[in-house]
């Protein structure tokens, strides 16, 4: 039945890492992810894990050490946020292209500048095309569950891709809430032992990892990477199914909340989805047919699933906690609207809302106002202002 506990998101994730007991953790502290290596290094010191903990001198080195260890054949985990992720940049692509199943928590925080330590999604959204699978979690429970599933997804023989476990800095990472933990032995049994097929420390198979890959080969290797990302959808669903059988907690590529008869929908990631569910219930009590879609996976993008869920709505607001700065709309908006077009779901009017930048608080009332906007949008002939801001002081003028 699991263990009833109350933990912050970071404590929960550090405990999942203790239960997984990886071979190597290399990390450099950065707010708000610092507590993860902090708690974890205590587990190392107290002999709770057998992990080799590598306290490196920068995030670039953290990811480099993870890559080296993973290529050698180790099971590897790390954590970072914001500028730490930025400093890992070139190594993120090395990790994914070498097909190394590293699992990293990205505790979402605004990337500087100007300097801000609070939550938005500009860090992980910036890394969305680096070849990492990205899972997003609403609560400490989901952050914990996702990291356990992430290990299985990353190491699956058809995937071999690194996975980012994204959850909101401070809001989830530092807030103490109820959680149900799994027993240590159940986590260990679920993730299983890691036996890589090919690895550098295999004396019976001498291989090179990461050599020059010029015109005749790189294209095909990139294709293989893309294929793995495409296959990841089915693997994620399979792992979620097994996790459901273990825990009773049911997950999918997206979560739909009261979408069956919804006329107006919001698509939103992470902790704001919880606040939005409250808004949905309040508006439903007033007779408005509203619903919510929360993608639980952003890479691979569950485009078909989101488009299908939206096919009967009149209008949809796609909320991004990162401004794409592309002149069109946030990253979740552009991917969602592309998916709608590809899947021939063109009836709903779609609006991009940028919200919560740099930790701007998002209230239930804010989300209610979005649904009310959608009601107006649905009745308008021509909607031209599709790139909007929620909670911006003074509005766009």
């Amino acid at each position, binding site marked *: 039945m699991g263990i009833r506990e109350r933990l912050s998101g970071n404590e929960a994730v550090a405990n999942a890492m203790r239960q997984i007991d990886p071979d190597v953790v290399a990390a450099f502290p950065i707010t708000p992810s610092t507590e993860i290596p902090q708690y974890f290094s205590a587990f190392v010191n107290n002999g709770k894990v057998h992990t080799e903990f590598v306290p490196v001198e920068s995030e670039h080195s953290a990811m480099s050490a993870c890559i080296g260890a993973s290529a050698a054949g180790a099971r590897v985990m790390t954590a970072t946020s914001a500028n730490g992720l930025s400093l890992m940049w070139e190594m993120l692509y090395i990790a994914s292209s070498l097909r190394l199943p590293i699992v990293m928590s990205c505790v979402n925080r605004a990337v500087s500048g100007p300097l801000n330590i609070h939550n938005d999604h500009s860090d992980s959204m910036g890394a969305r095309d680096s070849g990492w699978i990205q899972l997003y979690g609403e609560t400490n429970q989901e952050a914990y569950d996702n990291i356990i599933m992430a290990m299985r997804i990353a190491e699956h023989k058809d995937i071999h891709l690194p996975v980012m476990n994204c959850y909101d800095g401070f*809001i989830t990472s530092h807030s*103490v809430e109820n959680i149900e933990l799994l027993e240590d032995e159940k986590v260990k049994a679920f993730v299983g032992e890691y036996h890589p097929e090919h690895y550098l420390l295999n004396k019976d198979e001498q291989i090179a990892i990461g050599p020059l890959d010029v015109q005749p080969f790189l294209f095909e290797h990139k294709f293989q990477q893309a294929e793995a990302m495409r296959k990841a959808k089915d693997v994620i669903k399979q792992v979620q199914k097994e996790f459901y059988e273990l825990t009773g907690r049911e997950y999918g590529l997206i979560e739909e909340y009261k979408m069956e008869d919804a006329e107006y929908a919001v698509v939103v990631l992470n902790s704001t989805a919880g606040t939005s569910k409250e808004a949905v219930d309040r508006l439903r009590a007033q007779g408005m047919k509203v619903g919510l879609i929360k993608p639980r996976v952003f890479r691979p993008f569950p485009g078909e699933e989101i488009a299908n869920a939206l096919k009967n709505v009149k209008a949809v607001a796609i909320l991004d906690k990162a401004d794409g700065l592309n002149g069109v709309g946030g990253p979740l908006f552009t991917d969602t609207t592309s998916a709608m077009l590809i899947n021939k779901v063109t009836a709903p009017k779609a609006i991009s809302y940028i919200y919560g930048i740099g930790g701007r*608080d998002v209230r239930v009332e804010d989300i209610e106002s979005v649904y009310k906007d959608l009601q107006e949008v649905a009745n308008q002939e021509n909607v031209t202002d599709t790139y909007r801001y929620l909670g911006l002081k003074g509005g766009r003028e």
Partner: protein
Amino acid sequence: MLEIRWHGRGGQGAKTASLLLADAAFNTGKYIQGFPEYGPERMGAPITAYNRISDEPIRIHSNIYEPDYVVVVDDSLLEVVDVTSGLKKEGAIIINTTKTPDEVRPLLKGYEGRVCTIDARTISVDTLGKYFPNTPMLAAVVKVTKVMDEEAFLKDMETSFAHKFANKPQVIPGNMEALRRSLNEVKE
């Protein structure tokens, strides 16, 4: 769902107090949230922390703007921070001060609800020999909000103190005394 907002100064332990309250409520079977509002952290600067306590799972992840209760750990904040902002008049404000409720009410911008005071400094110094306002404040919050049964609260705290102070059990009786006195000395 009960929503509580804490006002303190950096270093006084308002965040810790909010987490202790969350713990105590958790131990009586509730769903809880305990979280601080992180700002520019420095000793002495005003800080805010929050609690949600409910019989149902809690989904909202925003700060609290219309609290049922407000706790002020340092009465010097009354003139600096709008502590009663959004506070429901059916609720109450609990202030750590040597003053009486009638003496502090004029500082509360016309707040119409209950005003409760507790002299956490005297209780803390008498029972613990030092100024740790958390323990007496926690008991005052339990007394005023009735978020849990007082006896169950005392029993739970005794267990957590035994765990927390495993290496210095001699401080446990003082802490328990601080809780008991505080439960009896809240004024309104």
